């Protein structure tokens, strides 16, 4: 997994690529929590280049969302590949996370 934080229209956007699994999830959590501790009001995450996410990756985002909700923050996903979308749907998390088609949809929300 590779994780970078880009700035788009003045906002921080998390860009992910590769596999998010038991090995890489602790690193993802570290980055995510560092941003959330600063109480960012919204955090868009680009899944466009994510090839695989396992339950540890999903749990990491659930934990992140739980923390953001405590101060009214929003965790926003976009560019989710169909295979990953199917897993989110199966675990009913497609109705828990805010999911958008692309970055423009996130900014328009």
């Amino acid at each position: 997994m590779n994780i970078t934080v880009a700035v788009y229209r003045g906002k921080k956007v998390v860009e992910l690529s590769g596999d998010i699994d038991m090995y890489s999830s602790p690193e993802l959590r570290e980055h995510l929590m560092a941003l959330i501790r600063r109480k960012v009001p919204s955090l868009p995450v680009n899944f466009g280049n994510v090839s695989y996410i396992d339950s540890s990756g999903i749990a990491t985002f659930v934990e992140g969302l739980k923390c953001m909700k405590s101060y009214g923050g929003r965790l926003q996903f976009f560019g989710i590949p169909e295979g990953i979308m199917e897993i989110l749907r199966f675990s009913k998390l497609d109705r828990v996370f805010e999911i958008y088609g692309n970055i423009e949809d996130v900014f328009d929300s």
Partner: protein
Amino acid sequence: MENAIEVAGLVTHYGEREILKNISFSIAGGMTTVILGGSGCGKSTLLKHLIGLLKPTGGHILFQGKDITVMDEDELNEVRRKMGILFQGSALLNSMTVLDNVALPMREHTKLKDSTIQIMVRMKLDLVGLSGFEGFYPSQLSGGMKKRAGLARALALDPEMLFFDEPSAGLDPVTAAGLDELIVKLKKVFKMTIVVVTHELPSVFTIADYVIMLDAGRVIFCGTLDGLKASDNPRIRMFLERQPEQESYSPDDYFRIIAGE
């Protein structure tokens, strides 16, 4: 479809007795393969070989191209991380809660924070229909619930392959059907390779893409479910039509056996 497992010329003995007699077959990746056969035909023994718990007398088992019959324990443990196994008796640790049982492989094999692990455990328990039972001990669960808790633990590390040893054994038909439905969903959504050892025909007809049928330690069928149903092999027909075995010896032979002559 790539093969997840290839078995070639597998032979095994318990003492002098030959259990598996030079068997060869492949298991396709991303599919559900059922190993079928009557009691004592060697199917549970075969499963133990596939997960590296037993060393064969002869032959090879290639898991993703690597021969597990020649691996040492460290190499086998690395392979087993990719496998989830639901044993017949569920094999839960009675002194631990359901949460701790499911969390155990995650705590042992990953560097995930416990806060993440607890969410993962709740996800796995929800998947098997056991939400809210985190704090229960195995002794407080029914047989079907223990199976599902065992399955949640088998799923703990998101395995690529899932092995079931007689998943329906001891379950009522409704609970068994629920477990079958879950097996079908796991394959579809997570693209898992699933291997199920069973002799329950309703279960076979629900979950199987491919069937390997054993009889007295030999493979007598290897193919699709439709192929199995169409087979005219007398042993397969007996099994599918639930016909009893014919008497294997005459009354005179029987007398000699019980009289100890």
